[in-house]
């Protein structure tokens, strides 16, 4: 049931990106280009998604999910260095390409070779981050001992 829910939600999400035009990097870049022929469509997408999503979350928050033991609601509240640095690096990549992860993966349907290379690079970026985090955790006890 979890997988069926995932399939349906991914499908609805994908239709949202398709109808809104946000699958197209050119349309996203037109929103980011505030000094050019600015296209505010992405702002409307965000506003509509926040209105519907916010209402849905208000209903979902105090409830048990239908097919899982509990809500995996993120608990972090601190605005820390990884958040700021990560969002900055992502912003550079997004500005260079007009692609964020959702539209990038959805565009795999087009079998565009350039897009496929982008998604492979994105996966490598994720793998590099995760490998670096594992190394940091493994190295941490040694670092702690170094002072003592």
């Amino acid at each position, binding site marked *: 049931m979890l997988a069926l829910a995932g399939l349906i939600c*991914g*499908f609805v999400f994908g239709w949202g990106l398709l109808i809104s035009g946000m699958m197209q990097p050119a349309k996203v870049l037109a929103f980011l280009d505030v000094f050019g022929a600015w296209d505010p469509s992405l702002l409307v997408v965000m506003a509509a998604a926040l*209105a519907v999503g916010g209402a849905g979350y208000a209903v979902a928050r105090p409830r048990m999910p239908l097919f899982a033991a509990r809500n995996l609601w993120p608990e972090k509240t601190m605005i820390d260095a990884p958040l700021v640095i*990560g969002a900055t690096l992502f912003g550079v990549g997004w500005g260079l390409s007009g692609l964020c992860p959702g539209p990038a993966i959805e565009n795999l349907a087009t079998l565009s070779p350039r897009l496929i290379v982008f998604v492979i690079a994105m996966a490598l970026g994720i793998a590099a981050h995760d490998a670096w985090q594992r190394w940091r955790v493994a190295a941490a006890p040694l670092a702690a001992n170094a002072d003592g």
Partner: protein
Amino acid sequence: MANFTPLSAAIGGALIGLAAALLMLTTGRIAGISGIFGGLIGWNAPDRDWRIAFIVGLILAPLTGTLMGYALVEPQMPASWAVIIIAGLLVGFGTRLGGGCTSGHGICGVARLSPRSLAATVIFVGVAMVVVAVLRHGLGG
């Protein structure tokens, strides 16, 4: 604002919000694509089935779209392979380090009224706007 398409943007945005709400109501998960995709990378990543299913649904959408009159348009990509690879690496590494992307922070996080997500969204939108301004209009604006 010649290319402004408010109606299709509002309908599409509402569907994205609906998908996020449905995923929370059914699975208790956040509809953040970088997190869903990132959770599939690695050897013993848990919780694989619904992630794979979500991504299959995401890719099926434009394929079924062709039946409804939405052409499958090849995305306009940067001309330089180096820029494509660097941008992909930055999007992957940055969303993982920052804990989310346009969907996880920008939509789900802001819809949860999370200050972290609001900060991340302001930063990545702002930085991307600066990058596009520099690339298209030069440093002088």
